[in-house]
């Protein structure tokens, strides 16, 4: 039965959500317009609020409907069929909700309504103008999932997630036979995304995106209602919260990449990564200018510009990643859903409207006639904000190259520009210097901010500078750092830690609540030091010294022969030396669902196209039996783990299990690393090439050998000896009865440094002959006991050979990467502290404002506590 009700309800609710958002925009706009009577605007406001709550209810209904469809496996719906499947563990059905474009828009819409409700409840005085902006954004966002075709014009607005499969793919031949056809199972979630980070990373990132709307709305509201300065106080805690959430979201993505992708790092300067990083940089700059904007009019102008720019950049990045512009430039941008036009309208509307409003009000914004002193707090914060913006500008200027091509195309010229060939080098070249300067400014700025340094007391900076230089010099000498840019970066980072640390120490003794800024800065500096070492001093350890892999091609024996060998080949069970380690590839393993650890692949038989496997033996892990032979158990059928044993010079052994996924959605085989984490470095290992673990081996033509006992023969260049033929009672897969006879041959195969014993069996049962061959994966060989000749006493064996299993793997050392993760935590803690403090500040102010006739004028109430 096709469940049409829930889909129709969902679609209807989207339409309701859209309409209520449009009307709420209008109503809030009316309520916010000056000139109308208080009573009139109150009526409009109440009406608008009711509409917004209706909108909230509709959005929650849409979310519920889509989740209901996915959670109940209604595969008659295209969205559920495309993004989920029966085999998906519950946790990941949540991720399939936002795997596709429509769902991720819905996630964004959802966060916006949550934030909108909080704003209405906490801030009545700003409600009308702020919520007008909010509702307008919601109108645009819901229009993206509207899925309505305007008749006559043939104009499609939005793409709804509630389409039936039949509506999306009406030409499937199956519908001719059975119009009510419902697929038994869905296509499932991309296995690469079946990772706990992918459950929490997208909601965090989208919450980050959603929160950037708040400072923007306040800025617009401030311009609109001419409360030119007052908007900063309520906007500031939200900006800090937004920067924290967006930052955490970005870092989660980076960490996921580090754990799951095999480019060997956490940051690839991919356009999609950049497009969320740039708004974050600008937002951080905005926070800094907002902190001084309460006193300095020049900073006020900048704050308006930056708060607006942050949100516009979020829109711009949405446009870039979803319109298909980046299609050939980025690995993971969405494909075009036909929404690019709509996205462009959205982007241009907000850009033009906000710039227009800003220009319109520009003359009435206060400006500072006084010179800004080089020794003032403001000056240093300005420098910091400028550097952040320039850094963001550089990133966006390069990332937008595909956009320039499109624009040129629109004007009829061909630009043919491509992204820099060495992207990482290109970005690092700039960002390294920007961030060196930024970290230095965080230290100097803090000194000026807390009045520890000033026009005539620069000497207070000497001590931290001296200390930083000493520490940096020690590290440089000890670690043997030679690159001038790394020396600069390290010194800058150490200086920032020392200077901010000293400030922190001082504040902490006074009022620890004010120390958020210093803590955050220390976090940034630590992150920078961690990035410097883990990326700049990445060491490939899988240098092949075996001498076995000398390429015959001329090309390769020339020039860069040596440096380039950064992968090594491992044959099954054959130890190979790599640096200090002795490596042995032991096994391929599969991942069971309800049993800890991984099981050898040979223990189970995977049922094709299903998530079950049949146990080929009793499954005993750590002394506990989970399944008996012949049982069916649940596994993750896409995942294979390569058991690589590392033997350290000390004799200690550890195993790493890099993963390979059979992932048709990603074009074939996807490899993920496994990481040996130590305090001072990570050892990062991934297999870059494997023989497809699901493919049947291709066997050579059968070769027959007829030999006597103790005879020697040659198979596949190995020496084989038939040691004996003995009677046996047990043959795998055959139940022996009374009067049956079975023998097995014991054949020894000599490899260079190891002997293998292969025992094919020969069974006579009910006057029928059964031959059970034995396969040795280590040797790539299959031997079948073919015949026994009683007359001559000779035995015949059939031998097939195949390519021996091998893997090509790479191992990298990442020194001091833990400093990066530690810095992240410090950064987040700092942001939380600052957010809490600014929020308290705002609440205190709001409550005082709300108290009528408090006796004091508003202007004098400003709390003059300076902190950052």
């Amino acid at each position, binding site marked *: 039965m096709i469940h049409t009700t829930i889909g129709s309800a969902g679609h209807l609710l989207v339409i309701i959500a859209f309409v209520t958002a449009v009307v709420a925009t209008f109503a809030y706009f009316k309520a916010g317009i000056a000139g109308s009577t208080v009573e009139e605007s109150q009526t409009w406001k109440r009406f608008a609020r009711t509409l917004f709550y209706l909108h909230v209810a509709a959005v929650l209904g849409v979310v519920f409907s889509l989740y209901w469809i996915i959670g109940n496996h209604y595969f008659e719906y295209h969205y559920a069929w*495309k993004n989920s499947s029966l085999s998906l563990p519950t946790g990941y059905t949540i991720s399939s909700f936002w795997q596709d474009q429509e769902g991720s828009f819905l996630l964004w819409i959802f966060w916006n309504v949550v934030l909108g409700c909080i704003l209405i409840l906490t801030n009545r005085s700003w409600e009308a103008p702020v919520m007008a902006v909010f509702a307008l954004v919601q109108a645009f966002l819901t229009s993206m999932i509207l899925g309505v075709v305007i008749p006559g014009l043939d104009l499609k607005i939005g793409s709804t997630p509630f389409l039936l499969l039949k509506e999306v793919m009406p030409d499937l031949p199956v519908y001719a036979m059975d119009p009510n056809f419902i697929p038994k199972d869905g*296509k499932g979630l991309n296995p690469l995304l079946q990772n706990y980070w992918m459950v929490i990373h997208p909601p965090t990132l989208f919450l980050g995106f959603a929160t950037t709307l708040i400072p923007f709305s306040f800025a617009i509201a401030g311009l609109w209602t001419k409360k030119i300065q007052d908007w900063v106080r309520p906007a500031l805690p939200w900006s800090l919260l937004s920067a924290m959430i967006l930052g955490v979201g970005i870092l989660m993505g980076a960490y996921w990449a580090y754990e799951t992708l095999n*480019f060997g790092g956490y940051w690839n300067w991919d356009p999609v990564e950049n497009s969320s990083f740039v708004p974050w940089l600008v937002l951080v700059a905005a926070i800094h200018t907002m902190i001084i904007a309460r006193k300095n009019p*020049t900073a006020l102008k900048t704050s308006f510009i930056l708060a607006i720019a942050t949100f516009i950049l979020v829109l711009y990045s949405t446009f870039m990643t979803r319109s298909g512009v980046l*299609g*050939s430039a*980025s*690995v993971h941008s969405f*494909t075009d859903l036909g929404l690019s036009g709509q996205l462009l309208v959205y982007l241009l509307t907000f850009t033009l409207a906000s710039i227009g409003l800003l220009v319109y009000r520009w003359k009435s914004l206060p400006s500072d006639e006084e*010179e*800004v002193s*080089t020794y003032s707090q403001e000056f240093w914060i*300005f420098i910091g904000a*400028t550097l952040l913006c*320039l850094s963001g*500008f*550089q990133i966006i*200027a*390069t990332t937008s*190259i595909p956009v320039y091509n499109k624009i040129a195309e629109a004007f009829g010229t061909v630009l*043919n*520009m*491509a*992204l*820099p*060939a*060495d992207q990482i080098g*290109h970005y690092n070249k*700039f960002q390294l210097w920007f961030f060196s300067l930024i970290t230095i400014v965080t230290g100097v700025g803090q000194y000026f901010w807390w009045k520890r340094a000033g026009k005539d007391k620069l000497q207070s900076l000497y001590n931290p500078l001296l200390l930083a230089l000493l520490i940096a010099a020690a590290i440089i000498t000890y670690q043997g750092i030679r690159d001038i840019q790394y020396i600069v970066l390290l010194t800058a980072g150490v200086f920032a830690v020392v200077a901010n640390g000293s400030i922190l120490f001082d504040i902490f003794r006074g009022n620890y609540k004010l120390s958020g800024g210093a803590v955050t800065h220390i976090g940034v500096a630590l992150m920078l030091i961690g990035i410097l070492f883990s990326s700049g001093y990445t060491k*490939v350890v899988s240098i092949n010294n075996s001498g076995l*892999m*000398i*390429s*015959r*091609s001329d*090309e*390769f024996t020339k020039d*860069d022969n040596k*440096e*380039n*060998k*950064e*992968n*090594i*080949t491992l044959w099954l069970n054959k130890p190979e030396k790599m640096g200090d380690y002795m490596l042995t590839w032991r096994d391929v393993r599969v991942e069971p669902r309800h049993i800890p650890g991984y099981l050898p692949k040979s223990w189970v038989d995977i049922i094709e196209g299903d998530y079950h496997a049949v146990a080929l033996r009793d499954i005993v892990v750590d002394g506990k039996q989970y399944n008996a032979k012949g049982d069916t158990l649940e596994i993750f059928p896409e995942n294979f783990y390569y058991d690589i044993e590392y033997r350290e010079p000390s004799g200690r052994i550890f195993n790493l299990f890099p993963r390979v996924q059979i992932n*048709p*959605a*990603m*074009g*074939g*085989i*996807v*490899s993920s690393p496994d990481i040996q984490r130590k305090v001072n470095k990570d050892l990062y290992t991934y297999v*870059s*090439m494997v023989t497809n673990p699901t493919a049947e081996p291709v066997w050579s033509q059968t070769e027959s050998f007829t030999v006597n006992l103790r005879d020697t023969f040659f198979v596949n260049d190995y020496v084989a000896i038939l040691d004996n033929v003995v009677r046996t009672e047990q043959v795998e897969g055959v139940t022996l009865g009374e009067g049956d006879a079975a023998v097995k041959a014991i054949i020894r195969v000599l490899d260079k440094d190891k002997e293998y014993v292969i025992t094919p069996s020969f069974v006579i049962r009910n006057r029928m002959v059964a031959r059970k061959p034995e396969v040795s994966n280590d040797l790539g060989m299959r031997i079948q006991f073919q015949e026994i000749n009683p007359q001559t006493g000779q035995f015949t064996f059939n031998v097939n050979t195949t390519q021996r299993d*091998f893997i*090509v793997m790479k191992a990298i050392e990442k020194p001091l990467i833990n400093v990066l993760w530690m810095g992240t935590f410090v950064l987040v803690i700092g942001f939380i502290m600052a957010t809490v403090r600014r929020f308290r500040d705002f609440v205190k102010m709001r409550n005082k404002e709300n108290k009528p006739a408090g006796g004091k004028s508003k202007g004098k109430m400003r709390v003059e506590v300076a902190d950052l």
Partner: protein
Amino acid sequence: MKKIQIFGLIIIAVAIGIIVSTAGDASTYVDFTKAREMAQDGDAESIHVVGKLKKDGSGQIMDMVYQPELDPNFFTFTLVDNENVEQKVVYKNTKPQDFDKSEQVVVVGKMKNGAFVADKILMKCPSKYDDTKMETTEHTAAKS
């Protein structure tokens, strides 16, 4: 002149510097004929070339050599650019897993001794999930 104006001028100067430098670093899409000309002129800039794999009548890829047992970091194939010019491409890294399935290939690198040495391979593979959409994957050779 006020300090803020000097400051503004410096920012504008840096921004222009960034734009100029970006334009300088930006690569271009060319064909193999142009790539050879550039190599002859001693132009060592990295370039993007878009092409298709050389296939025989039955769809098998021709002139592709990868022998991991001899050297896992050496892979060569022949690419035919949009002007139907054939060129041997050398990629000093492991063969990308999904290479055989790719339809369109973008190689990033430069001509060296008669062969195009690719630092990076971008591939577009027909997606199994949707015939109309293509997916892109990217592979980078280790720094030499």
